[in-house]
């Protein structure tokens, strides 16, 4: 039987959230960072119907499963697009990762690993996500500590010209596709889902705050000319004078990338099984291919932000609320 613990749910969602932060493009200001943090708090409140529904032993309805599946395909494709964008900057050896050939290589390798991991089952993915998240947090801590020398409080004012409070709030919702996975997995949490949600939102707040503040302090001054401020912050944060540690960040990036995509594939594969009970074999493979196809389609579009924010809000709040009302009526 597919069931996970609250810690595992939190870990699965956090890996995707942190990965999205790494892939964040554009500029950031103190106000937008505050908006981002408030967005997390708002999401915590909006998740109440979902938590009540899950703790009440609710089973996701068929129409909702189809909706979630569609969301996961789109969000998975979006994740892959962000990965393609970021891999030119981060992946070494550079000569093999640039251009279409490089993207294909990266996609192929990550897809293979994701396919294997998701084929081991939901329990295994959620267990490994806990360890991956733990390792990720350690690496992140090393990165943040190493950035202390490079931090400059003057950078905060320098970035005021960037995005504002509302932009940050919107950014938070547009980067929270992991909530869709959370909406599917929440009813499968066999211990208290409410404390799982509390754990997730508090950890997400802490980690996001740490990453965003460090990024502001390190890259605030050059934010407008950097493609990926968080990655640039990691690249600029060199604790030693005679060597660089960028590659350590790459390990972190790769681990989070794999587990982010895997959580989409695993959840999509689970939903495929629920919607089409006779479809037993090749579900993960089918899901990988569908997500890659979605990524190819989405790579030419530029309406990501509005689109993903809408998906997130609907999946997190509207769908569980409707299911909750329908269940109460029954």
């Amino acid at each position: 039987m597919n069931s996970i613990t609250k810690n595992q749910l939190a870990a699965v969602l956090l890996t995707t959230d942190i990965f999205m932060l790494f892939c964040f493009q554009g500029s950031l200001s103190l106000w937008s960072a505050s908006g981002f943090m408030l967005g997390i708090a708002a999401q915590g409140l909006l998740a109440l119907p979902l938590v009540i529904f899950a703790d009440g032993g609710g089973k996701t309805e068929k129409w909702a499963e189809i909706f979630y599946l569609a969301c996961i395909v789109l969000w998975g494709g979006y994740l892959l697009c962000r990965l393609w964008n970021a891999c030119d900057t981060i992946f070494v050896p550079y000569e093999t990762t640039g251009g279409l050939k490089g993207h294909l290589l990266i996609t192929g390798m990550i897809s293979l690993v994701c396919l294997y991991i998701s084929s081991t089952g939901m329990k295994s993915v959620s267990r490994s996500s806990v360890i991956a998240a733990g390792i990720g947090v350690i690496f992140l801590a090393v990165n943040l500590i190493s950035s202390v020398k490079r931090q400059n409080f003057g950078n905060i004012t320098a970035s005021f010209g960037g995005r504002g409070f509302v932009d940050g709030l919107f950014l938070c919702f547009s980067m929270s596709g992991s909530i869709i996975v959370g909406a599917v997995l929440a009813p499968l949490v066999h211990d208290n889902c409410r404390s799982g949600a509390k754990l997730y939102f508090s950890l997400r707040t802490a980690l996001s705050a740490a990453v965003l503040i460090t990024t502001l302090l390190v890259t605030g001054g050059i934010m407008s000319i950097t493609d990926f401020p968080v990655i640039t912050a990691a690249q600029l944060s060199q604790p030693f004078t005679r060597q660089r540690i960028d590659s350590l960040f790459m390990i972190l990036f790769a681990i989070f990338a794999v587990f982010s995509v895997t959580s989409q594939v695993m959840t999509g594969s689970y939903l495929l099984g629920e919607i089409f009970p006779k479809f037993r074999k090749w579900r993960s493979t089918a899901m990988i291919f569908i997500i890659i196809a979605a990524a190819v389609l989405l790579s030419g579009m530029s309406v990501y932000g509005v689109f993903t924010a809408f998906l997130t809000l609907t999946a997190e709040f509207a769908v569980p609320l409707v299911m909750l009302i329908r269940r109460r009526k029954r």
Partner: protein
Amino acid sequence: MLYSELKRNIAEIKRISGGSSDVLINEFVTGGIHCALLNCDGMVSASTITELVFEPITSIPQKKDAHELFHYIDEELLLSTDRPKISDYDELFRLMNSGFAVLIADKIDFALAFGVQGFAARSVQEPSSEGNIMGAHEGFTETLPMNMSQIRRRLKTPLLVMEIMVKGEKSQTNICLCYMKDRVPKQLMDKIRKSLDKIRTEALLTTGYIRPFVENGRFELFSTTGTTERPDVLCSKLIEGRAAILIDGLPYAVVIPKLFCESFQTLDDYAEKPLYAAFIRWLKYGAFILAVLLPAVYTAIVMYHPELLNSTLLMILVDSEKDAPLSILTEALFVLLMYEIIREAGIRLPKPSGGAVSIISGLIIGDSAVSSGLVSTPLLTITALAVLGGLALPELNPQITILRFGFLLAGGAFGLLGVSLLFCAVLANICSSEDYGFPFTAPLSPFKMSGLSDTAFRMDMKKMQDRGFTVEEYNEQHN
């Protein structure tokens, strides 16, 4: 079924055994009844059988019939403590070939067996594969009753149950399922028995003949059952609610289930102060990571990420590698393969030739390969460190070897990206390992804070005794 005529029974026994020379049939008359005592040559003690069986049996007074004779022998003579009745040939041969003397008589269709085993067996010696400083220096032997007695000596409670069963179509090997009945749930024992019922092999010659039947059938890098050569270690596992299987003819017990963290624990941890024990544990965690990842990370860094090295170290490496004719990946593969060949040769070679292996390997690897420039000194140092790390965890050596090569190839081909991706796959494989509902990665994932007290650290024994830990705490099927 046995016949009621002695001659027919003897003829059948000879037919079944094919006239095997070690089947000894002693015909005699006692109490006025024609009898035969059967035993297997070399399996019984000559003095025991003479003193405890032949002498009393041949001085039995006249009896009315064979039934009265057998009743007298079984109820009044008490020739041995272990004297089962036999009614078929399969059982007769199994017991006779296990060192029992079997008495058959005319006009009776069953036989009496007497446990008079006296075959040559290795005495209790220090375990060869599980070194220990402060604990007992006794290891299991190849004799099942002796191994059972070693456990019973340490756990005298009646709650310790030892169930003997016979497995192996041809070998008819006795195996003993041990567990504490207050610690292991009945449903778990039923599942284990069900798994053992699936064994259809012809012989049980090593633990590998049994372990696949009690393990999850999926592709797992690490084994979810453990083995131990030490009775004291096995007792600690039994107290923690694990089950064990002892196999006659093997000085190892199979422990079910095994967790990943157990590979880093030894009995000495509990003999030392907690702080030192925790230090040694972390040293072993580090050794495991070094053993698996060091050659791969070194290769990846030197080939693709030299910026990770500081300039002094980089210059040393450049200097040593500039004359090497092979790529670093090839060099690393060459050195590791050489090590594996030497290790294998060291294990398989007859003891007198063992010295030759050390000389040849020392000369080839240590001197010629480096001085000829075939292998660089830094790479050799890195490989030696990785190998040394693996030696700190002999139980995990097969897995470490495979992973080391896998990571080396991934690192050599795709740098740290390859290492990271393979790490994710290996992590998932380890996390998917599960046996009877016990996750292999517990208590790390699924996370149990209380479990860390004997994994990340080593809790004080005073606190540990109140904890009453059983491995059942981690079971995801029953909880």
